[in-house]
Structure formats: structure tokens, C-alpha cells
């Protein structure tokens, strides 16, 4: 019945791992040839693949695992999806209902363990409940603010035979996502924006999730309002647009930070306003007289920043409701935009080019030249993630995938595999540091087995670069436990897994390596030996306000 329900919900791929407590499901799997099952090599990989699949396709990803350790191995992946509002269905086996609570073999309290990292979870003890719960789970995971839903199914419930009716779910008494915004609030938001001298819009993941990028562009262009994005919002607004402020926050661009810190009206759309956006909260946007917060989740209103105006609704519908009221910008808007242009010139993105080492930015710039706006970039966590966010010109939404909220190292490779399986028509690039890469490197087997053409760009600096930078910059230069000199030879590792690979030391080797990677039909790994001292700039020192942002030191 579980598999039938998945088929009914249009699922194509399951990323999973069998075990004692989900054997009945796997026994029936061959009878469902429409469901492609991808055998992962670790359950965390299943969760990240389902996550990457969901982010790349907009359809819910499905991950499956057995009880106890199998389910617990997925917890990090669930937390990653939960923090970034990714629609996902996780199905875990549980021991037989009569033995639940007896510390049976491979029993864990999966409901308890995953309560805080799922949008909702269910324990199924009776087969009769399966159709209703499966339908509810899909409804909850994919509507409103999306998120992962876990279904923990007791083994005896999986085994029951019988006929079931499956009806998809469209309403639940305790679940009423706020799609439609209050029209008055939407109108008021535009009025506040129109009256502003120095307005700024910040766009988050919500804009991408609700496909509101066109409405955002129209509001911005017609009202003459500059737009920045969060890390997860990268791509929601074209990076090279004259009104673009690029990425905001504590590793955001200098001109974005300047604009936010000087804005008198700030409209946040589809974002949580978290600490990586604000840095020191009391010093964030000090000149803002009005905060307008647009989000589908009412609990985000006032969680971190208390808005003067709340627009609770889906980003697309909220921006659509604003559009009829948009006025052309006032005559003096040019002053504000000119000021931002000045800041853009004064604080450009810079990187060190003179020390003879291969710079990660050289790699990313070359990559972008080849792929333009079509490829999907899946970044891991750390310096590689910020470089990939800043040094690639995203002009469309959904082409940059990363673990923004949770910051899960090891995310990129399995998520890229999931993304490529969901979007075989797209080039998918996995950008990772060597630290995160080895955390889930076993999934290379999956890429090889299914010939998933993921191209792995390993930015290898033989250290935990971001932590090393924090230690250098903010912890008295004490380098503690960040050295990763002892790592496998990645060419041999690739060979062992059965995929081609190449190593790059110098700038002139970048092009030929990419040529080879792009020609390879299946997965390909490039081990880029980058400058071990390369840092991320701008950066705001931990605990400081945005105004204190550091840039690349002169002469570096």
C-alpha cells in the first residue's frame, strides 16, 4: 500500500536502504517497476539525494530507511531539509507494533528523535491508517511552507494484505497554510515602499519556492527598488541586474551591506531574517523606519525582527497583490540608486591573484563562462559554498542549491546526485571542499552505478578552510584541528570507485580539465589544488554588526 500510494502521488524515484524493519516494503518493490529505487550507501545520502531531487524539480523527494540506525542516519538529512523548507517524504521501518517500547532489536524512538527536524511525523501501527497518513503526509510536505514529513511504519502494518481506497488529501483541521495575503496589507506595503527615500527589498528562499521571481522583478523594476537576496535566495533576482544588490548578510557583498544599513524601508520577502542575515541584530538596518515582512509562515513575523507591517502569505500571491498598486519611483530615486552604484564601485568583490596559487574564484569564473545560466550548482558547506554563491552569476532561480540553514557538510555530493537524477537535462556541478566531500564520498558508488553525470569540483585546500579562516581572523590565529593534509589521493579514490578524474594545480589547466569533465558522459571529479590561504571576503567578524564588515586586505 505504501508503494501504491507513492505511485498515486506521482513519485518516480525512491532513495533508500533496506533492513530488517522494512523488508515487507522491499519484498513488494519489484512489483512496482514504475518506482525507480536508488540504493544509497548510507541513509544520510538517501535524505540528501531526496532533498537535492526536490530542490531541483520542485517535486517532493522520497527517502526510505529501516528502523533504529537506518532511521537515525537520516536525521541530519531531515534537519537539513527542514531548515531550508524542502518538501520531502521519509519512510522508515519500525519494529512490530507489539514490540514498540520494549527496546527491541534496532528499535529507536524515531518519532521522538525526528520531532524537531520534521514538519510533521507519523507513527503507523495499523495498516488501515496507511492510505490516509500517506495522503496527509504529501499534502503537508508540499503545501504552505514546505518541509520533510516522516512516516514511521511498524513492520506488522507493512505486512498486512488487503484492498485500500486511496484519496489524496487537501485539507486538515489543524493545518491551514496562509496562501492568500491580506489585500490591505499588500497595498500598504507598496505605499510604504513608494514613500521611502532609500528602499531595499531582500528576497529569500520563499521567492524561489513559490516561483515568484517574475513578480519580484516587476515590483522591483516598476518601483525602482534595489533587491538583495539571502544565501538561499541567490537566483531569485538576476545577479547582474542594475538593481541587484547580490547576496546579503555576514558574508554578503559590500554594496548590499551598505544599502541594508542605510535603507529607510526594508521589505523582506520569503525569508527568516536569521542571524547570518543580520549579524549583530541590534546593529542591523539601524536607519530602517519600516520593516515590511512578507512570509507564508506567520510564526516568522517577529521571531527575530518585529515588522511594522506583516504580509502573511505566499510570496507569489503577495507580490501579485502588490503589483496593481505599484507607482513609478519618485524623481529623487536616482540619488539612492547612484549611491548604491558608488558603493558597488567602492566595495567590489575581490580576490587575491598575485601569490602564484590557484584561486577558487578562477575555477568558478571559468565554470560560469562555460555553463552560463543553464547548469545547476550544488555547493557543500564552508568557503566553497560562499565562493559558489558570490562568484557565479545566477540569473535564474533554482540553479544554486546548498544547505543554507543547517550548514550540513557532506550535503553536496548526494544532493547533486539527486538533483541530476531529477533533472537529467541539466548539467549539474557539485562544488565541495575536501572536508565535506569525504563525509559522504561513499555515494560516488551511486553516481557510478547509475552513471549520474555529476561533475565534481573539489576545491581542495588541505584544511577546513572556513574554520581555519575563523581561527585566523577571530580566534587569535590559533590553528586548531583544521589540518587535512592526511587525505586520500582523490585520483586514486575516484579510480577505486570507478569514475574518471583529473588534478589541476595551475590556472592554465582549468580549461582542459573542464573540457574533459564536460565530455565525460558519467560522473567526473576534478581535484583543484587551491590556495590553502584563500579566504572568504567580505566577512563580518563574529558577534559584530554588518557595518564592521572586512574586505580582502589591500595587497593580498
Amino acid at each position, binding site marked *: 500500500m505504501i508503494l501504491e500510494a507513492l505511485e498515486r502521488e506521482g513519485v518516480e524515484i525512491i532513495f533508500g536502504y533496506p533492513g530488517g524493519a522494512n523488508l515487507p516494503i522491499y519484498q513488494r518493490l519489484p512489483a512496482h517497476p514504475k518506482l525507480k529505487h536508488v540504493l544509497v550507501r548510507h541513509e544520510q545520502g538517501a535524505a540528501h539525494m531526496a532533498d537535492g531531487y526536490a530542490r531541483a524539480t520542485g517535486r517532493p523527494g522520497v527517502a526510505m530507511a529501516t528502523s533504529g540506525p537506518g532511521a537515525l542516519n537520516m536525521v541530519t538529512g531531515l534537519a537539513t531539509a527542514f531548515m531550508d523548507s524542502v518538501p520531502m517524504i521519509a519512510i522508515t521501518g519500525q519494529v512490530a507494533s507489539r514490540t514498540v517500547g520494549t527496546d527491541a532489536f534496532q528499535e529507536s524512538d524515531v*518519532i*521522538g528523535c525526528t*520531532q*524537531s527536524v520534521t*514538519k*510533521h511525523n507519523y*507513527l503507523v501501527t495499523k495498516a488501515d491508517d496507511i492510505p490516509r497518513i500517506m495522503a496527509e503526509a504529501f499534502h*503537508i510536505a508540499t503545501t504552505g511552507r514546505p518541509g520533510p514529513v516522516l512516516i514511521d511504519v511498524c513492520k506488522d502494518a507493512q505486512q498486512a494484505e488487503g484492498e485500500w481506497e486511496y484519496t489524496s488529501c487537501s485539507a*486538515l*483541521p*489543524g*493545518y491551514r497554510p496562509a496562501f492568500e495575503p491580506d489585500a490591505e496589507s499588500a497595498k500598504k506595503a507598496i505605499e510604504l515602499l513608494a514613500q521611502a527615500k532609500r528602499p531595499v527589498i531582500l528576497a529569500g528562499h520563499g521567492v524561489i519556492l513559490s516561483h515568484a521571481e517574475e513578480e519580484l522583478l516587476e515590483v522591483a523594476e516598476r518601483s525602482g527598488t534595489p533587491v538583495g537576496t539571502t544565501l538561499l535566495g541567490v537566483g531569485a533576482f538576476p545577479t547582474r541586474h542594475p538593481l541587484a544588490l547580490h547576496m546579503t548578510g555576514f558574508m554578503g557583498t559590500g554594496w548590499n551591506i551598505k544599502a541594508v544599513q542605510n535603507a529607510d524601508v526594508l521589505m523582506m520577502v520569503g525569508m527568516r531574517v536569521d542571524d547570518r542575515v543580520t549579524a549583530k541584530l541590534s546593529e542591523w538596518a539601524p536607519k530602517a523606519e519600516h520593516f515590511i515582512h512578507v512570509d507564508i*509562515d*506567520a*510564526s516568522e*513575523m*517577529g*521571531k527575530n525582527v*518585529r515588522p511594522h507591517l506583516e504580509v502573511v502569505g505566499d510570496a507569489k500571491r503577495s507580490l501579485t497583490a502588490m503589483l496593481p498598486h505599484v507607482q513609478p519611483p519618485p524623481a529623487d530615486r536616482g540619488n539612492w540608486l547612484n549611491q548604491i552604484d558608488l558603493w558597488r564601485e567602492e566595495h567590489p568583490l575581490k580576490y587575491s591573484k598575485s601569490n602564484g596559487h590557484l584561486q577558487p574564484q578562477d575555477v568558478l569564473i571559468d565554470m560560469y563562462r562555460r555553463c552560463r545560466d543553464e547548469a545547476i550548482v550544488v555547493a557543500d558547506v564552508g568557503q566553497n559554498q560562499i565562493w559558489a554563491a558570490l562568484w557565479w552569476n545566477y540569473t535564474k532561480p533554482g540553479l544554486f542549491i546548498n544547505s543554507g540553514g543547517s550548514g550540513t557538510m557532506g550535503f553536496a555530493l548526494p544532493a547533486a546526485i539527486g538533483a541530476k537524477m531529477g533533472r537529467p537535462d541539466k548539467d549539474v556541478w557539485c562544488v565541495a571542499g575536501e572536508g565535506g566531500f569525504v563525509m559522504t564520498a561513499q555515494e560516488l558508488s551511486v553516481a557510478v552505478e547509475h552513471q549520474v553525470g555529476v561533475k565534481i569540483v573539489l576545491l581542495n585546500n588541505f584544511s577546513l578552510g572556513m574554520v581555519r579562516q575563523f581561527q585566523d581572523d577571530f580566534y587569535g590565529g590559533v590553528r586548531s584541528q583544521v589540518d587535512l593534509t592526511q587525505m586520500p589521493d582523490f585520483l586514486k579514490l575516484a579510480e577505486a570507485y570507478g569514475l574518471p578524474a583529473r588534478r589541476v594545480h595551475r590556472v592554465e589547466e582549468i580549461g582542459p580539465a573542464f573540457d574533459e569533465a564536460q565530455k565525460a558522459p558519467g560522473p567526473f571529479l576534478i581535484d583543484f589544488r587551491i590556495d590553502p590561504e584563500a579566504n572568504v571576503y567580505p566577512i563580518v567578524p563574529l558577534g559584530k554588526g554588518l557595518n564592521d564588515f572586512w574586505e580582502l586586505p589591500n595587497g593580498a
Partner: protein
Amino acid sequence: MVHDRLRVLAVTVENHPGVMSRVSGLIRRRGFNIQTITVGPSTVEGRSRMTLTVDAGYAEVDQVAKQLDRLIEVISVEDITEGPTVKRELVIVRLETVPPVVEQFGARKVGDRIVELTADTEVIEDFIEFLKPYGIQELARTGPVAMRRSA
């Protein structure tokens, strides 16, 4: 709007196993200052009514209410602090000796050396103070339940 005092939330939830755990888990991980939670069945089959008293300012209570409302099994959350409410709590106390005048509090004897009182939390506190000299051997309180005085 009153900003800093005890606020009362009336919460309707689905009567499923584990709902209390979801509510209390949420309160713990978000670090909310909840003073009391009571729960009992409602008149609707499969639904329970909870009363929460929250010791915090309006902004935090607003977050408590919104975060609770995100839970799928929470049907409704209402802040009933504003306006007149009826708030009652029950206490039962086993005493060494029963004082002769418990009736002046509206309390009554319900067994051998056991008295009970249903009243406002403040009156309950006064009553317990009054009883202390008589030797409290055991005491059980329900925590308050509440509703609006007019519908």
C-alpha cells in the same frame, strides 16, 4: 494592550498520542517560559482542550501562540488574556489536623483529613499558606483552566 504579565492561552488539539510531547517539546526547544499546562477532553470527540499560562511579555506570547499553531495537531490557539476570563484551579490537601474554618475559603472536607478547594490561583496560594501551620502531608494541584467570561 497589557505587555508584561501572566498571559493565558486556550489551545484546542487533536487527542492523539504524543500531542503533549509535541507541545512540551516545542516549548522546551524554543525556550519559552511556560508556567502551567493543563489538558483534558473537550466536548468534541477526538479533541482536547489545553490551557497554558505563559509568564512573558506580549511579543513572546505571540511567538508561543504562532509556533503552537504551526503544529499540525494544534487546531486553534487563542490568547484569552484580554477581557474578563474565568480561571479556576483545584487543589486537594492531606493535613495532620483539619482546621475548623476551611469553609471560609469555600473549601470542603472530602475525606479523612483531606480538604479540597476550587478557586483562582491567588486564592489557592493564600489557602495553602493558611493551611501550613496545620501540617501539610500531601498536596496535589491541577494548574489552572480558563475560558472567556462571555462567549
